[in-house]
Every structure is written in structure tokens, then in C-alpha cells.
């Protein structure tokens, strides 16, 4: 069941968005106060929401009614990735959070507030252009920069753990600026219950 929800989640978001647009076009009420609820099966509503009509509303005509899907999704890594992204990137030999990284972390904090039961481990990584031990320290520094920012955004430190892998677990193989950029990262992983 959970697996199905993973796969359907992006689709659900898409349809929810289209539906909101359609609703707004029809009655001028932006549906921003989406209450959390389970994403509903999309099959039945496809025809209506995928083909928004701009025909004038006829009093007494057909009124569509659907459950809004949950933009935050379930407490899974896939849902976190879809909502906020699971990682932020760093400049060379730096643990400073860029404006882009902060924006991502703010979304992650929002998602974490929505799922108060979720605890995460923040993995710090480095590119290959440092020695092994220095990179372990640098990865730890990066993971902590993320942790501290999430704490500043109101996430309880109890929910945040850090681990550094230095250059041991690259995301991308090879050499060159783009490879290195993608490997200088901090990644949020959801901890299993009890870990």
C-alpha cells in the first residue's frame, strides 16, 4: 500500500495542481488551505480535472467535488524528495549554506514540522579533492551546518542526527567540476523507528 502511494504521489500532486487551477478559474477561490488527507485514487476524476472547461457556469449545473491530496505526502524519503528535495550542495572546502541551500532547508523544515514523528540522519559528504581524514571532518562540518539551520527553524535537535562519510560515498562517479559539485552535499535520510 505504501509503495503504491510512493508511485502515485507525484501524479497525485499533478492532478491536485490542475484541479486547484480549474477551481480557481471557475470560482476565483484559490484552494490554498489544503487540509492534509490521504491522496485519493485519481482514476475517477481524470477526465474532469485534466480537461478544465472555460464554458460559463450554468446555474444548477454539475459541480465537481473531490478530496485534495496531501502535498506533504507520507513520511517517506520519496515524499521528502518530492516536497523539498533531500539534499543541499556546498562550495569547495566550505560548509557555508548558500541561499539555495537555505531555501531547500526551509522546505525540509516545513515538511519535518508536518511529520513530527519523523527523525532523520543528516549525512555529510565531500568531493574527492581532500584527504580522507580531512574530508571526514569536512563532511561532519557540513552535516552540522544543516542540523543547526534546521534547529534554528524550529526542528527539535532530538530528531536530528549527523554522520559524516567524507569522500567514501560519492553520489556521482568520475572527476570534474560538475561531478565534484554533486558530491559536496548533505543528505537527509529518514531513520527507521527505534534507530
Amino acid at each position, binding site marked *: 500500500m505504501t509503495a503504491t502511494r510512493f508511485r502515485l504521489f507525484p501524479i497525485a500532486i499533478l492532478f491536485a495542481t490542475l484541479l486547484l487551477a480549474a477551481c480557481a478559474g471557475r470560482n476565483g477561490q484559490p484552494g490554498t488551505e489544503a487540509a492534509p488527507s490521504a491522496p485519493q485514487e485519481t482514476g475517477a476524476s481524470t477526465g474532469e480535472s485534466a480537461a478544465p472547461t472555460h464554458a460559463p457556469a450554468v446555474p444548477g449545473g454539475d459541480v465537481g467535488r473531490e478530496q485534495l491530496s496531501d502535498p506533504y505526502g507520507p513520511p517517506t524519503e520519496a515524499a521528502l524528495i518530492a516536497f523539498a528535495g533531500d539534499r543541499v550542495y556546498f562550495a569547495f572546502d566550505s560548509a557555508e549554506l548558500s541561499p539555495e541551500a537555505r531555501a531547500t532547508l526551509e522546505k525540509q523544515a516545513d515538511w519535518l514540522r508536518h511529520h513530527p514523528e519523523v527523525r532523520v540522519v543528516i549525512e555529510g559528504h565531500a568531493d*574527492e579533492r581532500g*584527504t580522507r581524514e*580531512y574530508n571526514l*571532518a569536512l563532511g561532519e562540518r557540513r552535516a552540522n551546518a544543516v542540523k543547526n539551520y534546521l534547529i534554528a527553524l524550529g526542528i527539535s535537535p532530538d530528531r536530528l542526527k549527523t554522520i559524516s562519510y567524507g569522500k*567514501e560515498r560519492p553520489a556521482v562517479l568520475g572527476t570534474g567540476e560538475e561531478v565534484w559539485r554533486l558530491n559536496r552535499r548533505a543528505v537527509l535520510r529518514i531513520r527507521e523507528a527505534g534507530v
Partner: protein
Amino acid sequence: MGNDAIKEREKAMTGRSAGSGTPLKRCRMAGPAAFLALCFAAMASGLIGIAGGLFAVSPAHAQLKVDVTQGMLQPLPIAVPPFIARRDGETGVGELGELGRRIADVVAADLRRSGLFRPLDEKAFITLPVSVDVRPRFANWRAIAAQALVVGEIDMRPDGRLMVEFRLWDVPVEQQLTGLRYTAQPADWRRMAHKIADDIYERLTGEKGYFDTRIVYIAETGSKLAREKRLAIMDQDGFNQMYLTDGKDLVLTPRFSPNRQEITYLAYYGDKPRVYLYDLDTGKHEVLGDFPNMTFAPRFSPDGKRVIMSLAEEGNSDIYEMDLQTRRVRRLTSHPAIDTSPSYSPDGRFIVFNSDRGGSQQLYVMRADGSDVHRISFGRGRYATPVWSPRGDLIAFTRIGEKKFRIGVMKPDGSGERLLTDAYQDEAPSWAPNGRVLIFFRLDPATGSTSLWTVDLTGYNERRVPTPTDASDPAWSPLLDD
């Protein structure tokens, strides 16, 4: 001269063995840990010198001398003919004659890899020696330009031990330089060969050898995105490979204790990166200290009683020292910079380490109590992984710059910097116990493969150390015994 006595060294195999005094043969049949225990019991037992050398030749007249500090553009030609088998017979590890040949081969290979010697091709030999107690026919060795000659002989003793004797001759002056006898279980024949190579190296260079040593390293297999890494150990020439961990957990940066059969290393058991001790006699490992956060970059003190390492707290890494007996912990640095990769001076009074407190990674030296920190590296680029030579005269390091990682050395005051290697990514040097050779690992950017290499202080003699898999983070053992 033919009646020169051979100084005898007995290798006591049963003197001190792993905990329970387990005899050799029983150990061999057990698992890898027990086998290790056997090997290290053997090396812990030491050689008991027996005063048989009453007539040993005084070295005062010796002419041959190899200078280890010069680039050996002309390594010393040395003849190492197969060791003579005193009889036909089976040793358990091969027929006696065949074993004599293999021992000579190991001796010659050690000497060749040092870069200081050039073992001559056996095909050039005019005659082969007939006995270790018969004076060589020097004219025949002069004729093929041999400067030194090793004459060896092997035999099985009634108690089942293998006996290996050899004499080292100075060919031009026709004089014996050394003569020794080793005995051990036949299975230890490689160690006896390494000891003979050490004797020859020491006699001809005046420096201690480093052939009867081991290398601990990280064996790498699997996808480069999620490498399996295992703690591995081997002889310095790549033989007798053994794995100490199973690869399920990430392990990194092992180091040998200077005087115990222990290794300290970093492991991610339970997804918690912590410094561990591994007991080579028992195969057991234990975490060092109860720290809430990552500990890493461990090294033993020269007396083996302490370990220094980095501890990360709130993302900041500082250097700490732990007394292994009391487990008391002392903080040595306290700085918002990354302080890591510490290494003691051989007298234990100073520590060199790596810090980015000046903005980029550089090398700093402080007193062992953490006081008087001063920077020593001022060249171009970043400096990392400093290791103090066991002789005390040099500090080796990794220099990062000009898009390369290179191995170099400098004096402890930072002067006299020299780079020894020039590849894309060479990292993490570790000294041979005589302070003349370094082992490090090299990453090939094209394949992502890692391998172990040695280089001597001239920088000319760079050689790959064979390993069955990719390999990194090598550390040289001390000499196994004296």
C-alpha cells in the same frame, strides 16, 4: 677464512604464543584469527642470539658500503645463488632443493625492491657455491662484476625445523661480512628469507632493514559508489594476504601499534564512526572510549601507551589523547578549525597535525600537551596527512595543489621541502620502520582504482606493492622483532 664460525640465531617458536601457549600445528588448523595468532606469537617470541660467533670477521676491513641517501643510479650488483640443499628431502612446504631456490628468490626480490641492489641473473653465474663452509671462488664472481655474494645452505633438522645458514661475502676484498643461522618451522621460510635480506641490507648500508615487516591496509572491492572496504594485512612484499574484517561495515585508516600486536582504525559499526582497537592475537575488536560523536584519525604514541585521534563535536574536529591503560582522555587542541591527522615525533615530545585554522589545510607542530602550536608548511597548495619519520629527521605529507595530490617530505621545522611523487592522486604516506621508504596509495583517475606504492627518499625508486584487490590507507608495521 673458511672456518669462520656462523653466528647462530635461534628462533624460539614455542616461547610465547597466543595466550594459551597453543603449539604451532594446532594453530594452523584453526581459523584465520588463530592462524594470525600463530604468526604474531612467532614474531613476538623474538630471536635468541647464541654466542657462537667467536671468530666472526671484524667489519673494520669491509670495503663495501651502500649509501641509502643517494639516488642509486647504479645499484650494487649482488649475486644470490640458490641456497644449497644439504640433502634431498621434503619439508612440508616443498622439496628441500626447491625451497632453497625460493628462499634465494625472496632475498633477491627484497633487495631489488629497495632500489639499492641489483641481483645478478643466475644464467650469468660461472659456478655455483658447493657449501656455506667452503670459501667461494672469488675470481668467478669478480668475472661477472658481482660486488657482493650471498652463499646459503638449508637443511631439515631432526626436530622438524628448517635450518637456514648464509654468509655474505665482499667479493673484491674476498672477505666475509656476516654469517648467520636461522631455524624455524618450515612454514615460516619466507620470514627467514626476509630476515636474511634485512641482515644483508643492514650490513651493507649501515641502516636497519625493513623486509621482515607487514603492511596493514584497506582492501577495496565492489561498486565505487558504495565500496566494500575490509581491513587487510600482508607481508611487505605482498605475500601472506589476510582479511581481518568481512566488508559489511566501512573501515578506514588502520595503524600498527609500535610494540603490541594491535591495530587502531576507524570503523562504522552500527553506523557510528568510531576509533577501534583490533587485537591481532585474538581477532577481537573494541571501541576506544565512549564518545557521543565521531572519533577518527587514530595513531599510537611511540611508546604504544596512548592513542591520539580527532573527535568531532558540534561539527568541529579537535585532537584528543587517550591513555590506553586508564582510558583517561585529554583534549589537546581547542579551535573552531578542523584539526586532524595527528602524528607524534618519535621521542613523543611533539605532535604534527593538519589544520585549516589559517584558512586552508596546513601542517602545524605543537608540544605533546597541546601548547606552542606553530605552522610549518608554507609552500604552494594545501598540506595534509603529516607523518613523523621514526628517525625524527623528516615529516612526510600529502600536498594538494596544481590539481594533484603528491607525497613529499620536509624537516620538522618546515625547511627542506621535497616532493617525492608526481601522479594525479597520491595520498597518506606511512614510513618503513627505518625511515628510508614510504608506502602510500594512488588513485587512478581513469579507472577509479586504488593501489599501494612505495617510494624511497630519493624519489627515484617508486614501486607498486601487489595486492589482490584495490587497496588504500596502508600503514607499515614496526620490525617484527630484533
